C-alpha cells in the first residue's frame, strides 16, 4: 500500500472544530480515488497532510512504509518530488511563463535542460497550451491556469498524484480531457486522489469514493 492514515485528527490552530476527526484509511498502489464531501468537509486538509504541508494533531500518516512524523527535515523535499499536487488555488507564479511554471518541478530535481525542454513542450501541447508557452500565467484565463497547474503536477511522473478540484473551473469538454490525463497517469502507475464535489465526475467515473463529512470519513 502507498498511503495509510492511522486515526488522523487535525485541529487547526485557533479553531475548536477538528478539520479531520480520527480518519483511518488505506490506499493501495495504483488506485484512483475520488475524495468528496461538502465544502469545508476537510478534503484539502487531508491532501495537505499527505504532502507534508501540514502535520496531524494526532495519528500517523504513512507513505511508502515511511511514517511522516519520523521524516527528517532534509527528506521532505525528496518525498515531495514523488508527489504531484494540483492545488485548489493553483499556486502558479503569476509573473513566470506557462513554460517556466511547468518546468519548475523538473528544475528542482536537477533534470537536464534538454530533457526539461522536451517534456514540458510535449505535455503542454497535450493539455492544450502549446500556443501559450511563453505567456505569463497572470495573462491566462482561469481554466488555462488550471491546466498549467495540472501540467506542473504531471510533468514529474509522480508516484502519487493529488488533485484538489482539478476540474473546478473547466467546461465539461475540458473536464473530460483533464480526467483522461489523470486516468492515463494512473494507467502509467501513479496512485491518484482527486478531491471534488462535482457530482458528474463521481457519476461518470466509477471509482473508489472516499467521502468526508465535517472531518469524518463516512464512506471509503
Amino acid at each position: 500500500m502507498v498511503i495509510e492514515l492511522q486515526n488522523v485528527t487535525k485541529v487547526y490552530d485557533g479553531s475548536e472544530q477538528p478539520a479531520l476527526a480520527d480518519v483511518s484509511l488505506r490506499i493501495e498502489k495504483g488506485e484512483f480515488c475520488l475524495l468528496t464531501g461538502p465544502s469545508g468537509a476537510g478534503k484539502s486538509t487531508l491532501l495537505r497532510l499527505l504532502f507534508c504541508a501540514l502535520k496531524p494533531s494526532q495519528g500517523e500518516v504513512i507513505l511508502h512504509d515511511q511514517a511522516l512524523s519520523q521524516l527528517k527535515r532534509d527528506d521532505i523535499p525528496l518525498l515531495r518530488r514523488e508527489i504531484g499536487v494540483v492545488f485548489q488555488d493553483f499556486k502558479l507564479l503569476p509573473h513566470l511563463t506557462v513554460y517556466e511554471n511547468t518546468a519548475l518541478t523538473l528544475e528542482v530535481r536537477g533534470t537536464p535542460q534538454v530533457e526539461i525542454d522536451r517534456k514540458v513542450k510535449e505535455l503542454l501541447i497535450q493539455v492544450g497550451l502549446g500556443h501559450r508557452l511563453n505567456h505569463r500565467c497572470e495573462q491566462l484565463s482561469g481554466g488555462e491556469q488550471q491546466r498549467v497547474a495540472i501540467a506542473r503536477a504531471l510533468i514529474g511522473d509522480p508516484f502519487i498524484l493529488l488533485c484538489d478540484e482539478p476540474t473546478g473551473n473547466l467546461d465539461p469538454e475540458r473536464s473530460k480531457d483533464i480526467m483522461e490525463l489523470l486516468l492515463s497517469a494512473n494507467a502509467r502507475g501513479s496512485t491518484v486522489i482527486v478531491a471534488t464535489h462535482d457530482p458528474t465526475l463521481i457519476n461518470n467515473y466509477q471509482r473508489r469514493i472516499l467521502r468526508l463529512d465535517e472531518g469524518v470519513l463516512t464512506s471509503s
Partner: protein
Amino acid sequence: MASSNNNTMWVTLIKHGFRNVRRGGLHFFFVAFMIGLGLYGLAAFGTVWLNFERLAQRVGSSVGAVAFLVVDNDDEAQRVAQEIAAIPGVAKADLVAPDAALQRAVGELDKNNALLVDAQGLKLPWVVEISRKLASDTSPLSALVPQVEKIKGVGQVMHAGAEVQRLERLAQVLKNVGLYLAILIALITIVVVGNTVKLTVLSRIDEISLMKLVGATDGFIRNPFLLEGFVQGCIGGGSAALGLFLSHQTLAGLLQATLSDAFGVFELEPLSLNAHLLLLLAGGLLGLLGAAFSLRRHLRS
C-alpha cells in the same frame, strides 16, 4: 552523471538568479546602490582619516621638547639622554653635544660671522631634542615634561605646550567625531540593506513556499538569492571603489592645496589598490550576508 547533474544545477541556479534580477528590477539596483553608498562613505572617511593620522603624526613629532642639561661631560649626557629615551611616550631623544650645537649655529648663522666671535667664548650646554610618539596613544606633552624635568642632570625643559595641547585636543575631537560618523554610516547601511533585502524576500514569499512544495531543497531556493546578493554587493563595492578613485583624482588636489596652507607640504594619498579590492570584496560579502540573513527565517518554516 554526477557532473552533468552538477552542471544542470549551476545552469538552473544562474538562470533563476537572473530571472530574479530581471524581476527585481530597480529593487536590485537600489540595494547595490545602498551598499555602494555606504561603503563609499566609509572608505572616503577612511582615506581622510588615514591621511589625518599621518598629518597628526608629522605635526606631533615635529613639535617636541628640548631639554637643556646641567652636566659637564659626555658620558653623563649620554646617560641622561638614555633615561629620557626610556620614558614612555618618547619616540626619540637625540643628544646634541656642545660642539655639534656650535657647528649647527655656524651653519645657520654663517652670514653673520661676526657673532661667532662672541659665541666662541660662550659655553654651550648639552641638549637633548625630544620627539614624542604619535599623539593618539600617549600621554600629552604636558605630562611628559615634568617627567623629563625630574631626571637628574636635566636643567630646563622648553616646549610649545599650549599650542601642542590645542592641536592634540582637536585631533582627539576629530577622531571621536570620525569614529561616530563611521559607525553611523555603517549602521545605516546595514539597516537599509537588510530591510530592502527583506522586502525582496517578502515579495517572493509565495515563490519560496511553492518551490518548497514542488520539492526544492533549501539550498536550491537559497542559492539564487545568495548569488543575487553577492552580485549586488560586488556592483555596490565596485562602484564605491571606482567612485573613491575618481573622487581622489578630482578632489584630492583641492584638499591638498587647502591643507598645505595650514600644515606645510601635504599630500593626500589615495587608498592602496588592495584597499580598493577589499572594498569590492566587502561589498560582495555584505550582499551575501544580507541575503543569507533575510532568508534564514523563511527557510526554517
